[in-house]
């Protein structure tokens, strides 16, 4: 995978994780079932997807260092 593709994946992963963290932070200021549900969907879901994309980019990142 070329460098630019890896960076795009890192950016995507980062944006998703940021969104998830933002939602989670907002829900911590409320004690209500809705806050709990928002924490799970979409908070944790965005976080998990972002982490998965990062891990996938790690799996394919090794190809950038392969000798030609």
């Amino acid at each position, binding site marked *: 995978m070329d*460098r630019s593709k*890896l*960076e795009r994946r*890192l*950016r995507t*992963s*980062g*944006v998703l*994780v*940021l969104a*998830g*963290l*933002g939602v*989670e*932070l907002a*829900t*911590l200021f409320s*004690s*209500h*079932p*809705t*806050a*709990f*549900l928002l*924490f799970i969907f979409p*908070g*944790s879901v965005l*976080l*998990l997807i*972002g*982490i998965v994309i*990062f*891990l996938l980019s790690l799996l394919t990142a090794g190809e950038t260092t392969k000798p030609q």
Partner: protein
Amino acid sequence: MVTWTSLIVAIIVISIVLVSLIVVRPSITVGKGGKILAFVSLLVFPALSGGAGMSEHMERSKRTEFCLSCHTMTDHGKSLHVDDPSFLAAAHYQNNRVPRDQACFTCHRDYTMFGDFKAKLRGLRHVYVQYLGKVPDKIELYSPYNNRECLHCHQGARSFEEGATHNAEPGRLEQIKVNNLSCNSAGCHETVHGIDKLSDAKFWNEVREDGPK
């Protein structure tokens, strides 16, 4: 004073700062230090934040204010302040027989988002009904209240084991302990929240450290 919540907020804020670095400048991951930063920012800290946040939310959902935050529970919240010792929930709440900040959870342990998988699904069902369904006019338990929840505290207590009514006839105490005779049977502790009697009830003004409520 550093609270658990402020610690979690700090972890999330640090995670946000670190992830922002990667988003703004992904090229820093070329070097070894950048790779470690990416690993910590996009895996370690978010996982830590998610886990800590989940733990905090699970603890909050045990609290009385959490249960009473839905307007459907307004009458149940009021019933805790009825000035009548025959109202079981009120008598327990006002005399600190249950922790006031976890009054609902203490008695309704199997009715919350904790416990076994079925209990968790029931808890989610409440939220579904609240927002997408129709809340019934009379709120009732899905299944009869199990004496186990009472005996969790009362079993072994002198007032329970040696109470005159509990021993009025042979075998009654055993029947109660094996849940064959409900604590809430007619003639026993049948008024729990007494929602239908609230309109005629007198209420107690809760005294707190910061003054009467």
